[in-house]
């Protein structure tokens, strides 16, 4: 599995550029790039009304859960999933073997438009993530005393 140890300011700016352009063209509300373990790699759009972390965890699970269904009809996996609501919808598509892109959109646009622009966006995101050098390490060091000073989590 590709390791993504660190996203630099430049990486995030590039990702934001790609995702921002996609949101504008597709007229969607929010897009989130996650790894298949459910970790958020990048996000762009209106995140004020939802917990992106939880959406990422559930979307990763939803994507993986349909893999067996895909196998039953001779596919390795479904490249894209669409959950249709009354006013808000979710479209998920595979970026690469390790990464998924989630798009949340409403009545201003259509699933066809989102699907159309998400293909090129996924390709651009995949290329950018591939260009990261996992062997470079995360470049973030700190002293043990920074974390042993007290409990990480406090019981009220």
């Amino acid at each position, binding site marked *: *599995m590709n*390791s*993504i*140890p*660190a*996203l*630099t*300011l430049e990486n*995030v*700016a590039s990702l934001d550029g790609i995702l921002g352009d996609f949101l504008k063209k597709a007229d969607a509300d929010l897009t989130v790039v996650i*790894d*298949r*373990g*459910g*970790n*958020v*790699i*990048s996000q762009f759009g209106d995140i004020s009304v939802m*917990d992106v*972390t*939880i959406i990422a*965890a*559930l979307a*990763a*699970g939803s994507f*993986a*859960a349909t893999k*067996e269904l895909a196998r039953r009809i001779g596919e390795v996996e479904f490249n894209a999933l669409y959950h249709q609501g009354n006013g808000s919808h979710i479209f998920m598509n595979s970026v690469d073997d390790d990464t998924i892109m989630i798009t949340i959109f409403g009545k201003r646009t259509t699933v066809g438009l989102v699907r159309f622009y998400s293909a090129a966006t996924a390709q651009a995101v995949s290329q950018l993530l591939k260009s990261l050098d996992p062997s470079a*390490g*995360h470049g*973030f*060091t*700190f*002293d*043990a005393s*920074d*974390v*042993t000073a*007290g*409990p*990480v*989590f*406090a*019981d*009220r």
Partner: protein
Amino acid sequence: MSIINYASREIQFKIVYYGPALCGKTTNLAYIHERISPANRGDLVSLATAADRTLFFDFLPLNAVVIKGFVTKFQLYTVPGQVIYNATRQLVLRSVDGVVFVADSQWEKMEENVESFRNLEENLAQQNISIDEIPYVLQYNKRDLANIAPVNYLEFLLNNRKKRVQSFEVISSTGQNVFASLNAVSQMLLHKFSKGDGVPAAAPPPVAAPVEPSAPKIATTSQL
């Protein structure tokens, strides 16, 4: 797989609560959710059946200490303990950074504990991770029940490897040592992340020495 984001100044970690069915994994997360400051946690998401058995996973996002201006974000997951859900356990283990193995202390659960630990090793191996490389702690849960095995027997079964790890006597329903074990595994993976060279050498010892009992023979994890 921890992810560090220099733009949002966040570091993400994933901790998975693993163990046999009905051992108390969800109870751990429910206690943590109840007791941690709402400012530092998200919603507890539970995908359970009507009978409150975990079907997919439970999920709890937490914010923790700030290190050099970076917020550490921990994502706590449980796996479904029932044997048939192994594919789901493999999914939840993807990109894992640390594990809390929850063992059920009741005598009749010993084989299930060992089987679940072996299953954890196998599923980590599928991701090319050795159990000895990943930060993990052991919980001996349900210490308040009457028919429980002594701690040194649990140590013999589950913590008898070359590298012994921290273990805790836990009563997850009352919260005894729930935070202690979460803090221990969090410290371990923060140390690993800070140095890139594994867990700190000065980690406190397990709760007891492993002792082979005269009780029924069960294959230990070191023999697997």
